[in-house]
C-alpha cells in the first residue's frame, strides 16, 4: 500500500474562492492510502514546496497528489520538489482543480464536489504508480530550418553564429521568401531588397550554413536531439557547381510564356529562370512543365549557349538524408484564394489586384518597372480604392476569423507612397478598424491621413462592378456618416488575408507538430513558450505560428534560434520514461500498433515464449524506448491490451475512471 500525501493549493483566490479547500483536505483523509493532507495558499512557492518536502520526510510518503493548476504549469515544479526530498518524481500526480474546476465553475458546493472527485482519481492513479527512471539520449549538434524566407534566414544565421551547423531547406529556387517580393517596408519605408539581400548573402556565405534550395523535406523520423530527415533535392536541370550565373540561357530561352511566380503571375518568365535578380543561389532552374526540350524533345538552346556546360537535362531528383538535433519551422504564408470573394470582381477585372500584386507593380523590377499603371490598359490611374480585411476577421467560413495583422500598415504605406509619387491620384481606403499597435506605427498611419491626405472611410465595400468604360464602380458604406457611397475607381486594391503556407499541414504531420484550425502551428504555451512547438525539439519561426510583420518575425526568428541553441548546447538529454511496452504473453503480433505509431518506434521480433507451459515462437511487438514518445496511440489501438504505457497504464486509467464514477 502506498503512503500518499495530498497537497491542496489555494492558488490565492484562483482556487480557494470557488472550491472549499478545507473540505477537499477533509475528504482526502478518507481515501485509501492517504496518510497526510494539507492545504496552503501557494503550493508552488518556496514555503509550499518546503511543506511538501517536510511531509515526504516526516510521513515517509511513497506517493503524492497535488491539487492545483494544470500539470502543464507546475508538474515539473512539484516533481523536482519531490525528487529533492527523496521521492521518485514519477510518484507525483496532479489533480487539476483550477483550469478543470475553479476557473470554469461558479457554484462552490458543486465545484468542491468536482475537486474532490478529481483528487480521488489522482489518488487512485498514484496507488498504482511505480517509480520510473529516465534514460539518456544524445544530441546531434546540427539544426534544420524549413523555409528560407526572412524568418528562416534569421534563425539560421543566429544558430550558425553560435557555432552550430545549420541547413536551410527552401522549396523555391531561391531563398528570400515573401520579403523579397516587397517593395518598401513600413514604418521606415526602406527598400525591402536593400535590407534583405545582405542577410541572404550573409546566410549563403556563412561557413556553418548549408542551403538546399528547390528542395523539400520528404520524411522525418526520430525525436528531439536525434531527428533523421530525408530532403528531396528536386532536379534543377542545371549543375550548381558548373553554372556561373551569367544569365545567357534565360535570355536565349525561346519559351517565355510561363507565368512568373515572383511577380505573382502578372508577367511571364522563361522556362529556364532564376526567380529574381538577387536570387541566391544565382543558378537557374528549368521549369520542366514549360520547357520545350522536356515537352517535345527538340530545342536545347540553353545547353548550346551555356559556356560552362552546366545544363543537364538528365538530372534526377536526389534524396539527401541528414541528422539533426533541432528543427525550426519557418514556412511562412501566402495570400488566400479570392474565389469566394467574387463581389470584389478580382476574377473579372485586371484592375482589381491584391496588395501583394501592388507591391510588384510598385517595384522597379516588377511587371511595370515600377510605374503605377492599370494592368488592363496601361493607363495611369487617377482614383484608387483600397479595401481592407478581404477575408480577414470574417465571421463566416468564406474567410479567416483572425486579423491578418499586417494589412492596415502596408495599406497606409501603399497609400502614402502613391500620394507621394503621384500627388494627382486620389486614394480612398475602406476599413473596419485601423489597427496600428507597434513602435512608430500609429504615427505612420497618421502621416498618411494628415500629411498625405489619404481618404479613410470607415465602412465595408459590398461590391465592385466593372463598367463598360473600364472603370470600376465601388459600392460601399460610410458608417460614420451613415450613408451609402458609390465611387468610380480606376484601380481597386484588396488587402487580402494571409494564411499559412498550405504545405504546413504536410510538414506538421511529418514533425507530429500540432496545428490549429487555421493551420497555424501551435505553440507549447501561448504566453510562456511562444516559439516552441509542443513536440520537443521543434521550434517555430515567423508567420507559420501566427500573422506577424517583419520586425516581429525577425524577433521571433531570433528567439527560436536561442531555443534551438539551448538544445544543441546540451550533450545528452534525459528521455521520458513514460514509454510503451508490450506484454509478450498478450501480444498477437498483429501490427496494429506499428500502423498507428507516429514515431516508428515499434518493430516485430520472433520471440520464444513460454505461455503457461506452451512453448512457441511468436511474432511480438518490440518498442524502441528511445523513439517512443509516450503518446499512447498504441495502447488504445491494441485489441488485446498487450501494449501498456508506463506511468499511464491501462489499469491506472481505468482506476481513475472508476474513482470518478464511484
Amino acid at each position: 500500500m502506498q503512503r500518499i500525501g495530498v497537497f491542496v493549493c489555494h492558488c490565492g483566490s484562483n482556487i480557494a474562492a470557488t472550491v472549499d479547500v478545507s473540505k477537499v483536505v477533509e475528504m482526502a483523509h478518507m481515501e485509501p492510502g492517504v496518510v497526510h493532507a494539507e492545504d496552503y495558499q501557494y503550493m508552488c512557492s518556496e514555503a509550499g514546496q518546503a511543506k511538501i518536502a517536510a511531509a515526504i520526510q516526516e510521513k515517509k510518503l511513497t506517493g503524492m497528489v497535488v491539487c492545483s493548476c494544470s500539470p502543464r504549469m507546475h508538474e515539473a515544479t512539484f516533481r523536482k520538489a519531490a525528487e529533492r526530498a527523496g521521492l521518485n518524481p514519477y510518484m507525483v500526480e496532479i489533480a487539476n482543480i483550477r483550469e478543470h474546476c475553479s476557473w470554469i465553475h461558479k457554484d462552490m458546493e458543486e465545484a468542491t464536489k468536482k475537486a474532490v472527485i478529481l483528487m480521488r482519481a489522482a489518488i487512485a492513479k498514484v496507488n498504482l504508480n511505480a517509480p520510473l527512471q529516465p534514460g539518456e539520449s544524445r544530441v546531434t549538434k546540427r539544426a534544420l530550418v524549413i523555409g528560407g524566407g526572412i524568418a528562416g534566414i534569421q534563425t539560421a544565421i543566429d544558430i550558425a553564429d553560435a557555432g552550430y551547423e545549420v541547413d536551410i531547406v527552401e522549396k523555391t529556387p531561391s531563398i528570400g521568401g515573401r520579403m523579397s517580393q516587397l517593395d518598401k517596408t513600413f514604418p521606415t519605408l526602406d527598400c525591402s531588397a536593400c535590407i534583405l539581400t545582405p542577410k541572404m548573402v550573409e546566410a549563403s556565405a556563412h561557413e556553418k550554413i548549408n542551403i538546399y534550395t528547390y528542395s523539400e523535406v520528404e520524411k522525418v523520423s526520430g525525436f528531439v536531439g536525434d531527428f533523421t530527415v530525408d530532403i528531396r533535392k528536386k532536379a534543377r536541370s542545371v549543375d550548381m557547381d558548373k553554372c556561373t550565373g551569367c544569365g545567357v540561357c534565360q535570355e536565349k530561352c525561346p519559351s517565355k510564356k510561363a507565368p512568373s511566380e515572383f511577380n505573382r503571375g502578372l508577367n511571364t518568365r522563361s522556362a529556364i529562370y532564376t526567380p529574381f535578380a538577387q536570387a541566391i543561389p544565382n543558378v537557374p532552374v528549368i521549369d520542366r512543365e514549360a520547357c520545350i526540350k522536356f515537352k517535345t524533345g527538340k530545342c536545347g538552346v540553353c545547353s548550346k549557349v551555356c559556356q560552362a556546360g552546366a545544363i543537364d537535362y538528365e538530372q534526377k531528383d536526389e534524396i539527401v538524408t541528414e541528422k539533426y538535433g533541432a528543427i525550426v519551422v519557418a514556412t511562412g504564408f501566402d495570400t488566400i484564394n479570392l474565389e469566394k470573394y467574387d463581389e470584389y470582381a478580382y476574377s473579372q477585372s485586371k484592375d482589381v489586384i491584391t496588395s501583394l500584386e501592388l507591391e510588384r507593380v510598385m517595384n522597379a523590377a516588377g511587371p511595370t518597372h515600377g510605374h503605377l499603371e492599370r494592368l488592363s490598359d496601361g493607363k495611369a490611374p487617377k482614383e484608387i480604392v483600397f479595401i481592407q480585411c478581404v477575408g480577414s476577421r470574417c465571421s463566416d467560413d468564406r474567410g479567416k476569423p483572425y486579423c491578418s495583422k499586417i494589412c492596415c500598415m502596408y495599406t497606409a504605406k501603399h497609400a502614402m507612397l502613391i500620394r507621394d509619387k503621384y500627388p494627382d491620384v486620389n486614394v480612398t481606403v475602406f476599413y473596419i478598424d485601423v489597427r496600428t499597435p507597434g513602435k512608430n506605427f500609429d504615427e505612420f498611419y497618421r502621416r498618411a491621413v494628415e500629411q498625405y491626405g489619404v481618404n479613410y472611410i470607415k465602412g465595408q465595400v459590398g461590391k465592385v462592378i466593372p463598367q463598360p468604360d473600364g472603370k470600376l464602380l465601388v459600392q460601399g458604406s460610410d458608417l460614420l456618416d451613415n450613408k451609402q457611397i458609390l465611387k468610380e475607381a480606376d484601380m481597386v486594391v484588396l488587402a487580402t488575408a494571409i494564411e499559412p503556407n498550405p504545405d504546413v499541414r504536410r510538414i506538421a504531420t511529418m514533425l507530429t507538430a500540432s496545428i490549429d484550425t487555421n493551420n497555424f502551428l501551435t505553440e507549447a504555451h501561448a504566453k510562456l513558450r511562444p516559439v516552441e512547438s509542443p513536440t520537443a525539439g521543434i521550434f517555430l519561426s515567423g508567420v507559420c505560428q501566427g500573422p506577424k510583420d517583419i520586425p516581429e518575425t525577425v524577433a521571433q526568428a531570433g528567439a527560436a534560434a536561442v531555443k534551438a541553441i539551448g538544445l544543441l548546447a546540451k550533450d545528452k538529454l534525459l528521455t521520458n520514461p513514460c514509454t510503451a511496452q508490450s506484454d509478450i504473453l498478450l501480444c498477437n503480433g498483429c501490427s496494429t500498433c506499428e500502423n498507428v505509431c507516429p514515431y516508428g518506434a515499434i518493430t516485430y521480433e520472433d520471440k520464444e515464449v513460454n505461455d503457461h507451459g506452451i512453448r512457441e515462437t511468436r511474432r511480438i511487438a518490440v518498442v524502441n524506448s528511445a523513439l517512443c514518445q509516450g503518446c499512447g496511440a498504441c495502447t488504445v489501438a491494441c485489441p488485446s491490451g498487450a501494449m501498456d504505457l508506463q506511468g499511464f497504464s491501462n489499469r491506472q486509467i481505468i482506476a481513475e475512471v472508476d474513482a470518478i464514477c464511484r
Partner: protein
Amino acid sequence: MQELVNRAKELLADGTVARVLGWKAGDLPYNPEPAYFEKAEELVDFVYNGFCGANLSKYMIEASKLEGKTMVCLKPCDTYSFNQLIKEHRVDRDKAYIVGVGCKGKLDIEKIRKQGIKGIELIQGAELTDEADTLKIQTIYGDKTCAYADAMLERCHVCKGKEHMVYDELIGDSNETKDADRFDEVAKLETMSPEEKFAFFQKELSKCIRCNACRNVCPACSCRKCVFDSTKFDSSQKANVDSFEEKMFHIIRAFHVAGRCTDCGECSRVCPQGIPLHLFNRKFIKDIDELYGEYQAGADITSKAPLTNYTFEDAEPSIVGKRG
C-alpha cells in the same frame, strides 16, 4: 461435394497437404460441424451443403502452427476473413492450400423453423449441385417444402459477391444471392431517437447469456487472450454492472473489431439467443465508409485500414463527434 472429396484425396495422396479442413455431418441433418481429416478414408464423413455456414478461416490460426499444409475450404465471404488474418499476421499463407468453394447461399435453420417446419429428419435440395430452388424436408409430421431463398441467412441476402479474394484453386459455382442493401437495417436504426435506440439495444442485449459464442467464432476476435479473460485490466468485471448487464461486453467487442470486421455475419449466425450482433459492426462499417471512403476489410492484404491510418482527407474529429 464429390469433386471436393476427390480433390482432397488427391492432395492428401500426393503430399501437397497434411490434412483437410472442412465440415463433417453433425448429429442432425442441419448442423454439420468444422472438422479436420488427415486420412483419405476419414473423408467419408466430409459434407459440404447449404448448412455449412461456418467460416473456417479462424481455424487456420492453429492450423498454421501444425506441420505441413492444410487444405482449407473457404466460401467467397470466408476469404475476406482469411485475408484480414494474413494482414494481421495471424495465419501463415504458405501453410494453407485454399480451395475456394462455390456457394449458393447458406441456410438458417431458424428461418425454416419459423415457417412452422419442426421435427426435421431429412432435408433435400441443400447440396451445392442441386438445381432446385426449393428444399424438400422430411419431418416426423410428413413432407414439407420451403423456398431456398426464404431459408437463407440474413448475410446471404446482402452477399458481398461470388468472387474469392484469395485461393489456390476453385471448385464449384456460386449463385448471386444479394437482394438487399446491407446498411438498410442500420439506416433504420439511425433514424431512431436516442431513447428508442437505447430501448432497442437494451431489449436485444438483455437476451445475452454470455456464452461467448460470438467471440469464439469471430475471425477478428483472434486475440491470444481476450481482455475479458485477463486479470490484467479489471475489464472482466466491467462487463456486468448495468441494468442490461452484457452491454459493455458487446460494445467493447464491437470497438475491438471496428475496422477489422469483414462483416462475415458469423456472430449473428451462432448466437443461440438470436441477437442481431452484426448491427453493431455494420454501424461501424457504415460510418467508416461515410467518413473515410468505402473500405472492405479483407478485400486485400496491403491496403491501410482507415482507423489505423492517417491521411490529409480524413474527417476532422469534430465532424466525427457531431455525428454522435
